[in-house]
């Protein structure tokens, strides 16, 4: 498991990935490298393949062709739980909490199964993550008593309990008020500052602009632009496909 890679080698290499559902091509020959510590924004109109791409990265879907290489290891055929153990964590577009557990217990699942050998008691680790996320007061609450923004934060906290190297946030801000968006965005940015690579799927443009070091825009399963946020936004094809002309 201890694959040594050159310091400048990408954390995640997606190579010529194609995913089809019947006759529909959701991802068409996608290749992209994500650098270690990068804050990466993923945009595109609905149905452009954003969630399919991160499903292929996190293991919920297997691509027909192409490869996913993480930390120098080919993980294309690994089931999601083994990817989680290698440090890939995600949140879901529609929050999927463990409903029969408290907020704290939700985090304990990841600590129990995905992380190996911590010197601190698991509950302390879970509490420190919750404190970090501003959810400490809700530790003992059932998940169905949480507000929408708390639920989103809990999803991120649960992903953090996996101790990820790569965190994938799938529209964590959808449906939130603008002050809540800032709150979640600040959290994500602060996580990015501690060496966690983050892929953020988002529709809220000012959030993408503020967050991302690099942005990739998908349309109909193809990459139509990739680069600095301002460049991508200025791209004519992006404006046509996504922002409307």
């Amino acid at each position, binding site marked *: 498991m201890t694959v040594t890679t050159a310091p400048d080698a990408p954390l995640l290499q997606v190579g010529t990935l194609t995913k089809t559902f019947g006759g529909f091509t959701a991802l068409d020959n996608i290749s992209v490298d994500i650098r270690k510590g990068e804050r990466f924004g993923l945009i595109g109109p609905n149905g452009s393949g954003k969630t399919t791409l991160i499903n292929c990265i996190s293991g919920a879907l297997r691509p027909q062709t192409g490869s996913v290489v993480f930390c120098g290891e080919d993980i294309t055929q690994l*089931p999601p739980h083994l990817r*989680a*153990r290698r440090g890939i964590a995600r949140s879901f577009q529609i929050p999927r909490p463990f409903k*029969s557990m408290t907020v704290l217990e939700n985090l304990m699942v990841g600590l129990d*199964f995905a992380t190996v050998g911590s010197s601190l008691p698991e509950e302390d680790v879970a509490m420190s993550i919750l404190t970090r996320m501003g959810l400490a007061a809700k530790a003992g609450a059932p998940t169905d008593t949480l507000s929408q923004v708390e639920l989103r934060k809990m999803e991120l906290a*649960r992903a953090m309990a*996996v101790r990820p190297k790569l965190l994938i946030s799938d529209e964590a801000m959808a449906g939130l008020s603008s002050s809540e968006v800032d709150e979640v965005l600040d959290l994500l940015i602060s996580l990015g500052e501690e060496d966690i690579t983050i892929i953020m799927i988002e529709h809220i443009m000012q959030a993408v602009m503020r967050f991302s070091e690099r942005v990739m825009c998908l349309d109909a399963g193809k990459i139509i632009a990739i680069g600095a946020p301002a460049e991508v936004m200025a791209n004519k094809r992006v404006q046509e496909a996504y922002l409307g002309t």
Partner: protein
Amino acid sequence: MTKHRNSIAFWAGVAIFLVAVLSMTQIVRNEYPFFAGYVILQFIALAVAWSILGGYAGYVNFGTNAFFGVGVYTAVALFKATGAPLVVQIAAAAAVGMTLGFGVGLLTLRMRGIFFSIATIALAIIIETFVMNWRFVGGAAGIQLQRPPVMAPFDSYVKMLFFVQAVLVVIAVGIARYIQNSRIGRGLQALRDDELAAECTGVPTLKLKLVACMISGALMSAVGAPAAMYLQYADPSSAFNLTYSVSALAMSLIGGTAHWIGPVLGAILLGSTQQFLAVTISSEINVLVLGIMLVLFVVAAPKGIIGLLRPRYRLRAGGKP
């Protein structure tokens, strides 16, 4: 600390239970309490075994009768072929039940919810049909069995079986309790709530489901093994009777599945009510009572007896309190 103290209390309770059962077999002379008690113990063990898969993992198994019948006929075949002692029959039944459980576990790859349940019913029918056509164990007509001489310190075979079933209850409860308190239990609870989210949080869902199916299956078949000697007779339609499935499920749900004590309470309540009714009114009314109680509990106490007693288990039992 409290966990440790809980363990001491638990095992002390187990010791007291087994000593009480053993002394009862030595003191009480009338055989009837053992006849009736055996059935109640059998249902406790079945309900606890059922809840490992049906409660903790949320896969509703309607094939308890398949596992039970496989246990019965493993014991019958082994006894007829080699005259193996009861302990060996039970161990062999557990091994076969575990293998069958592995097969059922593979079903969970593709099937969830109601589809899984229906597949388990089909499984019972397939195995029953096979046994009906298996001449060596008597086929559809069934088979008479001659009990071997009873072993000391017991003075009757039924008393010995009563004690054996009590030991099986202890094993089932011990395993269920271990799973509940270990990370396996947390993993099963997570996959019951949301399988994809559990996978993505590092839970090896397939492995845990297979483990739950195999343990649950092994216990159910082990519980079935002594039944042939209990009745001195075995036939496919009673060994594979759907009542076992319905009872195990109803007892677990009525007791509550969030804690191992739930199925135990449910089985004691329903099992003794059924025994009482069988003696005072008729054995046919049992099924009616089972149905009525299940309906009452589903409406009035959806999280079972333990949900009523301990509100904090309502959450663990899943969904809204």
